[in-house]
């Protein structure tokens, strides 16, 4: 597919990496020749230098032959203008714009109509939603849902006190007393596809498939006490903070926001009347202590600096905060971060990229495309949900007799209202949906791609 990406920033280059590897023809537009040169030397793409909202530049980038335009330049207004202009030049074009100014969020549906957008993405809002979901089930580092929220892949960290430490996967069901499947283990920064004899060690991060209604049982049996989050400290008063505070207030959770910039504090106090806005430096331990970090239920660090977020999170963990969430802008160094106890890591950029990649896949492959795609294990594995339709091969055959590609695992079969964690005798039929996990080496476009 012919895709134009306007704006070669952090988001643009993450998208480039993903979409180029999936075999799309990409053209990048940016006004900075330096970043373009770097992208051209790293990926198999074409680059055009200029203002992405200008007709001449868009034509030069081949907007007439393009199928999709993704506008992720710095300013919302530029993105909107870019999509509108491009759509005027090529009415067949699908357009995705990043719009992240909170003042536009309430009018986003109307704007989609007006600016001819196929989709509007807001990474910060998405991140806030994700954080709120995590705060609802403290204990999991990450939750990805499938089958309209009935099945999840959750991430857990095994520490020395964990009941699962030094337990082989075969003996695991006796401890958790519910049907779950470990579909990937991240050990020392590398994803491993485990078998039954695999023994979990301290420091592993495991990815577990489980029906959503068993999550509470799972948490209880693992000895991770769940109590409702009542008070949250947010470090940094950026856009994510605003969205998150707004959502948390709705569920009646007390929110404290620590922000360094006085003016921003005033603004936040005006738009978030029920929150407690504190003007101060979140990296100061004294301030955090005086604001009661020791007995808060959750800490979310989302200042603009990744390093600062990490340090505050580490401090929070050492103070015994039950739930810590760290926001990171760059996910390049995740393999070394795995060893730090930073709690859950959320990258707005990556969440948003996943959404866009999902859209592209659906566009490319109208029938048989994955219904849901989540990257897990720091991007080293992918979980996808597919519908079993007439074209699917091997319907009704037990899984143990099927030859699947190396690194592919069927982790859940959903039939009607039932979710089955499959064993060797499980089968899938037409109309079911299945969730598979792959190590990402082979590109899986549709369900039949998983067979040898």
């Amino acid at each position, binding site marked *: 597919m*012919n895709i134009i990406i306007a704006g070669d920033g952090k988001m643009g280059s993450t998208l480039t*990496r993903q979409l*180029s*590897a999936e075999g799309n*023809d*990409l*053209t990048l537009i940016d006004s900075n*020749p330096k970043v373009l040169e770097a*992208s*051209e*030397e*790293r*990926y*198999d*793409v*074409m680059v055009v230098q200029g203002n992405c909202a200008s007709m001449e530049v868009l034509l030069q980038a081949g907007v007439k032959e393009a199928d999709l335009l993704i506008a992720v330049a710095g300013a919302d207004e530029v993105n909107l203008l870019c999509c509108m202009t491009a759509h005027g030049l090529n009415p067949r074009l699908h357009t995705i714009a990043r719009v992240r100014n909170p003042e536009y969020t309430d009018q986003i549906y109307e704007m989609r109509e007006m600016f001819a957008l196929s989709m509007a993405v807001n990474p910060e809002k998405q991140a806030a939603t994700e954080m709120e979901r995590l705060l609802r089930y403290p204990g999991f580092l990450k939750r990805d849902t499938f089958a309209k929220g009935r099945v999840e892949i959750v991430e857990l960290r095994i520490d020395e006190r964990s009941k699962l430490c030094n337990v082989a996967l075969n003996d695991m069901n006796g401890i958790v007393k519910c049907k779950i499947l470990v579909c990937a283990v991240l050990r020392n920064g590398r994803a491993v596809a485990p078998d039954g004899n695999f023994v979990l060690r301290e420091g592993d991060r495991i990815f577990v498939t489980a029906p959503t209604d068993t999550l509470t049982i799972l948490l209880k049996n693992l000895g991770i006490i769940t109590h409702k989050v009542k008070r949250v400290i947010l470090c940094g008063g950026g856009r994510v903070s605003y969205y998150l505070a707004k959502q948390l207030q709705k569920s009646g959770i007390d929110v404290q926001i620590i922000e360094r910039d006085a003016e921003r504090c005033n603004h936040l106090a005006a738009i978030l009347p029920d929150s407690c806005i504190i003007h101060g430096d979140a990296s100061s331990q004294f301030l955090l202590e005086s604001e009661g970090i020791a007995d808060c239920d959750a800490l979310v660090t989302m200042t603009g600096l990744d390093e600062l977020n990490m340090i505050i999170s580490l401090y929070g963990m050492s103070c015994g905060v039950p739930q810590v969430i760290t926001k990171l802008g760059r996910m390049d160094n995740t393999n070394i971060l795995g060893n730090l106890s930073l709690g859950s890591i959320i990258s707005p950029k990556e969440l948003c990229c996943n959404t866009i990649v999902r859209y592209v896949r659906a566009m490319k492959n109208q029938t048989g495309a994955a219904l849901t795609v989540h990257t897990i294990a720091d991007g080293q594995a992918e979980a996808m949900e597919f519908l079993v339709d007439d074209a699917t091969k091997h319907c009704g055959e037990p899984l143990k007799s099927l030859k699947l590609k190396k690194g592919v695992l069927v982790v859940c079969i959903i039939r009607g209202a039932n979710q089955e964690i499959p064993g060797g005798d499980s089968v899938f039929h037409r109309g079911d949906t299945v969730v598979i996990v792959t190590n990402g080496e082979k590109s899986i476009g549709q369900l039949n791609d998983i067979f040898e």
Partner: protein
Amino acid sequence: MNYKMLGRFVGKILWVEAAFMIPALLISLWGREIPAVKGFLLSMAAIVVVAGLLTGLCKGSEKKFYAREGLACVGISWIAMSILGCLPFCLSGAIPRFIDAFFEIVSGFTTTGASILSAVEGLPKGILYWRSFSHWLGGMGVLVFLLAISSINGGDNGFTMHLLRAESPGPNVGKLVPRMKKTASILYLLYILLTILNVIFLLAGGMSLFEAVCTAFGTAGTGGFGVRNDSIAGYSPYIQNVCTVFMLLFGVNFSCYYLLLIKQFKSVFRDEELRMYLGLVLGSIVLIVLNLRGYYETLGETIRHAAFQVASIMTTTGFATTDFDLWPSFSKAILLFLMVVGACAGSTGGGFKCGRALLMVKSLQRSVRQVVHPQKVQVVRSNGQPIGEKVLRNINAYLAAYVMIVIVSFLAVSLDGFSVTTNFSAVIACFNNIGPGLEMVGPVGNYGAFSTLSKLVLIMDMLAGRLEIFPILILFSRTTWKHR
């Protein structure tokens, strides 16, 4: 340096080379040329063994490839390809000495067309075909061919850009379409189409199929190996004119043809490099015709010879219809000047390249203006687009390297004791991938008399000229071979 990846690439290139020897083998079989058949079979076996070893030994390489690997890969591939590609000449007995055969094939792959043979008419047809085909393959580049046929998958595969940059001539190489594979395919498709067109026109002039194909290969790669002793001089005026036109066509930047294909006539018409190229051709023809009054019987004949020689030298082909060594000095000086300027960037021709010369003149202009207004801020533009300082800096570096290599080679070749004109024009003709120079190495002469050292120097010049210096120069730098 990622040796494994490098080895894999060279292995792949050699497989391609072995595959391309098959047609030559078939021609030899068909003509029952027993020594040539033997030569080809043995060489193919040798290439397959080396390629197999490289592919086998370099399995499971890391896919980390940066600018220096790209450059070194191109340089090494070309040298490996030449060493193995000259085996048919040696083993068939057509050119018994290895250094001579090596010179001949490097001259072929680099589309130089400088020969050590005094007579080619007695050679087996398969050998003649392989000799001409090497021009065709070298013209557009064997790595570009590899990029077109193989799919290199993976996330960070922008390194293909380094390969294209290293092998395609010009100061500012870019892609035509987002995908490298498609860009390379488009380039080769245009190349093949133009070659077929050339063959058809030559056949219409009454040439035999074999000669038409070989001549078209020589023209397409802007190489200059002919199948007759007197190059193109023995053919009819029609064929000579066809050659003139096609030589000029192959000297044009191929992205111009792509722009024509997607109907962007305006940008082709306004292309500054193309204008300069055509302007230089026309101007030179006019000057030479004026200078040649009285040399030929009719004005028509004068124009024909002048146009042919100008096209042949400017596009760095090196065909000849007449011995221009007998022309007056002014005409010879013009030809020498055209040798250095060369064809357009992104064409199959060699030389310094019109585009590069144009940018150099413009940046010189800027420096002159800077003297008048020292604080003036100026941007060099080409086709209305601002050109980055990095590109201009590279051109200056290129010029420095160019001059230095010419001087060193000239000194080395002079050891043989031939005349200054012979030595200088031999270096210029080899370095710019033209072929014939002046005096002893003129259109009716050859390079056979040079010593082994001179031949080696000229071989290096040809390779450096075709690959635009840096891919060869980098092989001599110690830091290239260090582990990261």
